[in-house]
Every structure is written in structure tokens, then in C-alpha cells.
């Protein structure tokens, strides 16, 4: 027989109790510190992004602006700029720009950018993060003065209204996310157009129609599994099915579009739709499950058919939940990049997507592209694009939460 150690009595008991409490406090602190680490990581991430999007830039003009005009750069008017551009740009380049958007209709800021980008040509010598710029101002100024005597030093916000409406450019100083935002919107729009009706239909089938049995539980298990398939596998599926097998449809050649291959925003939208489909189904099922049975029985009681019951009573009550689920699916689709790389998002494109058969790029793709380039000014615009993406996602998720709280009914 095992001899048991006697339970401590008297002072020994109190001493051991104190030890136990001390150990308990230490562990509690450890548990809490795990959460603190998570908070620190999140803060560091957000700080790094904001830190990168603002700061000093040192640049030189390759050609002196004085060669083009006696007026100082920041006092140039729209009319003066129009004249300079017309005279100095080669006629081919001018006509190309004019075709993209007539010069007369462009804003002064836009024309000034063209002037700086095409004629004066900025040569960036260095960029600094916000923290460095604020804390080591004097040192940066001294360094720039010493190394590049002609360079101008400016505190610049890389995230400007201009940044949102300018298309891609090979010079970071003039690049924007207009093409990427439009591409993302097209892609997500097509994805939801595809996935929302089918996902809701599947959820209705599974909750309201499907007989209990092995087949239904197979579908259910399958949906849960699809939700866990790595996104890049969906990309490969999209590449094989939408880009390649269905090329006639996704490139638009069966509708008479001739200038594209299967790597279109339609292929991307369908791929992304397939990716978010399980997510939409699972959320819609939850929403439909939450509609109380008494509503269905009341409908049947007055003689409604099954579809009438679903259409007039179940769906309207489940709608806020279904919409919340779709918003979450949209934000998932907006942030995904791996499948888009595989189905062939263009990394350099400056023409707005104008239909389902356009080539496209998307916000996360631009962020990926700019992050992997070596020059620091591209990291700065990557940070700007990340802020745009995060604000978009935050708005979407906040509206999902609001929708949920507003319409959440307690039966």
C-alpha cells in the first residue's frame, strides 16, 4: 500500500497555502502577459504602418525647373502647366496622356505631377520614417546637406487624397492606388454576385429542405472542410478552371472581346467567390437556424407552402444575419492576395478596369509588390496602401457589427 504524505497542519498548512497563492499570482500574471504580448504586437504593427507612411524625403531635380519656366514650381498655374507640357513633351507622349484623360480636364495638381514626373524628373535620394524624421531632424538635415548638396528635404505624407485617385506609376513619388482600388471593387463585386445567391440558396436547402441522412451530413462536413482549404489552393483551382478551361468565357472571347486572355478580373472574382462561398453558407445557416420554429409553424398553419414560408417568413427574419455574413465575406475577399497572384493579377497596370474582362490589379497585390521592392520609397507607399486597406476593412467590419447589433432579435 502506498503511504500518503500527511496533509500539513497548523503553521505548515498556512505556509504551504501562502506558497500556493504566490504561485497562483505568478501564473495569473503569465496568462495576462500572453494577452499583453498580443496587444503589443498589434500596436507595433499599426505603429510600423503609420510610421512608414509619413516622413522626410530627400530628392533632387534631374532637370532644373527653371529651364522650363521662370515661375517657381509651387506657383505654377494650370494654364502655364498646360503650355509647358504641350511644348516640352514629345507629341506621342502628350497624345497618349490626352487619350487617357483630356489635358484640359485635368486638375492643377495632376498637371503639376505630370510636370514633375515627366519633365523635371525627381530623383529620390532617401526617405525616413516618421519617428526618425521627428526625433532626428537635425541629423537628417546635416546628412542630406553633406551627401547631396542640391537635394531638397521635405516632410511628406505618402497618403494623400492624390494617392487615392492616381493610377500606378513606376516612380513611387507619383504612384497611387486608384487602379488597385477599382480592381479590388470589381473583383469583390463579381465574387459577391456569384457567391451570395448560391451561398444563401445552399444554406436554405441545408436548413429547410435537406432530409437528415448521410448525404446531407456529407455536404455539411464538406462545407466545413472547404472553409479550411488554404487560399492558394483556390488560386490553383481558379487557374486551372476559370483562367484555362473556361478561357473562352472569362476572357470574353465568346462575347467578342478580343484583347485579353483568361487572366481577367472575372476569373479573379469567380475564384474569390468560390473561396468565400463556404463562409457565406455557414453564416447564412446560423442566421436561418436562429429563426424560431414557431414562425414556420404559424405559416404552415395558415396553409403556406414550404417556399412561401421560407420566402415570406424565414428569409426576411434571417436577412440581417445573412448580410452580416456577406460583409465579413467581402472583407475576407478584400484582404486575400495569394489566389489573385496565382490567377494572374497584373502587378503593373495603370488603366482602370472597365468591365469584367479587364486586366486588373488589387490593393493587397500592390502592397505585396511594393513591399518586395528594395527602394525605401516603395515601402512608404506600401504603408500608405496598407492604411487605405485597413480603413476599408475597419469600416466594413464596423458596419457588420452595427448591423448585427441593430437587428439582433431576441425571440
Amino acid at each position, binding site marked *: 500500500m502506498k503511504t500518503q504524505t500527511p496533509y500539513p497542519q497548523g503553521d505548515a498548512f498556512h505556509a504551504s497555502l501562502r506558497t500556493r497563492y504566490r504561485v497562483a499570482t505568478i501564473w495569473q500574471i503569465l496568462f495576462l502577459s500572453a494577452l499583453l504580448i498580443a496587444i503589443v504586437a498589434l500596436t507595433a504593427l499599426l505603429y510600423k504602418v503609420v510610421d512608414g507612411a509619413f516622413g522626410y524625403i530627400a530628392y533632387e531635380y534631374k532637370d532644373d525647373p527653371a529651364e522650363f519656366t521662370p515661375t517657381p514650381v509651387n506657383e505654377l498655374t494650370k494654364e502655364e502647366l498646360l503650355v509647358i507640357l504641350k511644348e516640352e513633351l514629345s507629341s506621342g507622349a502628350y497624345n497618349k496622356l490626352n487619350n487617357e484623360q483630356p489635358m484640359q480636364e485635368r486638375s492643377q495638381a495632376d498637371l503639376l505631377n505630370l510636370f514633375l514626373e515627366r519633365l523635371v524628373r525627381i530623383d529620390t535620394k532617401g526617405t525616413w520614417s516618421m519617428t526618425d524624421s521627428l526625433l532626428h531632424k537635425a541629423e537628417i538635415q546635416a546628412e542630406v546637406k553633406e551627401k547631396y548638396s542640391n537635394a531638397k528635404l521635405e516632410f511628406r505624407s505618402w497618403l494623400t487624397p492624390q494617392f487615392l485617385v492616381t493610377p500606378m506609376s513606376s516612380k513611387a513619388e507619383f504612384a497611387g492606388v486608384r487602379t488597385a482600388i477599382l480592381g479590388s471593387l470589381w473583383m469583390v463585386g463579381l465574387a459577391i454576385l456569384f457567391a451570395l445567391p448560391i451561398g444563401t440558396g445552399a444554406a436554405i436547402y441545408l436548413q429547410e429542405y435537406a432530409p437528415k441522412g448521410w448525404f446531407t451530413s456529407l455536404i455539411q462536413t464538406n462545407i466545413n472542410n472547404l472553409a479550411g482549404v488554404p487560399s492558394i489552393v483556390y488560386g490553383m483551382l481558379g487557374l486551372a478552371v476559370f483562367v484555362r478551361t473556361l478561357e473562352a468565357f472569362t476572357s470574353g472571347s465568346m462575347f467578342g472581346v478580343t484583347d485579353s486572355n483568361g487572366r481577367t478580373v472575372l476569373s479573379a472574382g469567380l475564384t474569390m467567390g*468560390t473561396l468565400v462561398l463556404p463562409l457565406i*453558407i455557414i453564416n447564412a445557416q446560423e442566421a436561418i437556424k436562429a429563426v424560431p420554429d414557431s414562425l414556420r409553424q404559424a405559416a404552415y398553419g395558415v396553409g403556406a407552402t414550404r417556399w412561401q414560408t421560407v420566402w415570406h417568413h424565414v428569409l426576411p427574419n434571417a436577412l440581417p444575419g445573412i448580410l452580416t455574413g456577406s460583409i465579413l465575406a467581402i472583407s475576407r475577399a478584400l484582404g486575400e492576395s495569394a489566389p489573385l497572384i496565382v490567377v494572374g493579377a497584373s502587378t503593373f497596370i495603370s488603366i482602370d478596369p472597365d468591365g469584367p474582362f479587364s486586366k486588373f490589379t488589387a490593393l493587397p497585390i500592390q502592397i505585396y509588390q511594393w513591399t518586395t521592392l528594395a527602394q525605401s520609397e516603395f515601402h512608404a507607399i506600401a504603408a500608405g496602401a496598407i492604411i487605405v486597406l485597413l480603413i476599408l476593412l475597419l469600416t466594413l467590419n464596423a458596419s457588420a457589427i452595427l448591423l448585427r447589433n441593430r437587428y439582433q432579435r431576441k425571440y
Partner: protein
Amino acid sequence: MSQSFDLKKKTRIGESAIQSLLFLAGILSIVTTVAIVYELGKEAMLFFGNPDVTFAKFFGGTQWQPGIGNYGIWALVSATLTTSAIAIFIALPLGLAAAVYLSEYASPKARGILKPILEILAGIPTVVYGYFALLFVTPILKSFFGDHIQVYNMLSAGLVMGIMILPLISSMSEDALSAVPRSLREAAYAMGATKLESSLQVVLPAALSGIGAALILGISRAVGETMIVAVASGAGPNFSFNPLEAAETMTGHIARISGGDLSYNSIDYTSLFAIALMLFLVTLVLNLISQWIVGRFRERYE
């Protein structure tokens, strides 16, 4: 006077048509799975059908250059294993500790503040984590390891991946912990246990299978993660388990190669599908195990 009603079920064409449409929507998910297996399998078969490619070379080799006849998948698997192991090494203890705190210690008010923070962490796009890994974590690691660490390295990618997976592990573990009936905790308190003793010796063991499910799903997520490794862990297959070196994972390789211009039917193209098929099968098995554990666990307490 009497009126007769026909109480037989009427055939309603509209109703049946709608039901068929809904059924079609329902089985589309099955079609998707079949399409994944079929399409990946078809191209992978073309790859393995190549007389030069043998299973022995594929599963035995440590060089991956399909263009010149090296088909050793270990060159990519080693990086996937290394980054995933680092990620789990970070995410499991932190996620579990966070779950215990949220489920056993936190007041409702504290939970209301702390949980959304984890949810925000879970909602950040992975490419943003990639930016963070390359431009924030790597420079910090560089200041620790100096020249021993390469600019692109698996350590930085793995660490950030761990932060990314943390919310998943903590929320699944928390579900498992809070599913443990209150009576078990009360029994522990009645025996004179402190809160810590009850949490660690009673509640945690009871929730172990749910935590196991979280761990397995976390591994599956780490293996399938693409953008963080594509940005931060390096381009180019490298058979190495040294976290300070650059190496390309299976997912990172697919992303890099398919991003370029690729001609269909080339060995590069079909080899990507062989990798993707392997990725799909591995994650599928992991997900199924995880779901099976969760299902069994749920039955036990309900």
C-alpha cells in the same frame, strides 16, 4: 349540403423547381471539392507521368529545380515545416495562456475589451503581416543576430505567423475551456483548490481534446499560409531547417512561380499542381482530424 375537399397533396411545379435549384446550390460545394481534387490531380498526374519524375526522387530528393531535373520536394517541405514549427511554438503557449485568462480569470468587462483586440489581430490581411515581418521584425532580429541572419529568413516569417495564428488558437481553446461544466470547477473549489489549481489540473485536462483540435487547425493554417512567407522568408528553394536562413515554402514557391509568365503544359506548371495537391491533402487530413475531435468532445458534455 356537403362540399368535398381534395386533401391529396397537389403537385406544385414552381415549388419543385425552386427546391431543385436550392439543391443544386447545396451540392455546388461538393462540386467544388471534386473540382479541386480532379484539377489538381489531373495536372499532378501529368507531372508524375513524366518519365523523369519518380516518387523516389519526389519524396527523397532535397533539390527542387524541375527545369533541370531535380524534383526533391523536401527542399520546399523543410521550409514549410520550419516556419510552421516556429509559428506553433509561439502561438500555442501564448494562445493557450490567453484562452485560460479570458475563460477563467477575466471579468466580463475585461473580456469585452480584450476579445475585440484578438479579433482585430485575426482580421488583418496576411500581406500586411508580411510587410510587418520584413520591415519591422527582420531589422530587429538583425540587430540581435547580426550577420548570422539573412535578410530574408524563416525565423521572422515564423514569428509573425505565430502572431497571426494566436487568435485562432486562443478563441478555439477558449470555446473548449468554457464548454467544461461549472460543476467540475465547483468540485475543485470544494476540495480546497485555488483558482490556478482548478484551472490547470481540472479544467484544462477536461478541455484537452478541444485544445488539441485548436492546435491541429493552427498547424493546418500555418502550413497553408502564403503571403507572410512569400514576402519575408525568401525566394528560392533551400533544403534547410536553420531558421536564420532564407528558404522558400511550398506555398511561397507556388506564389512566386505562378506569378510569372508560365506556359501551360511545362514541367514548371504541372509541378505546381503536384505541390498544391500535397498541400490540399495535408490540410484536408488535419482539418478532418480537428473536426472529428471537436465533434466527439461536444458529445461528451451535452
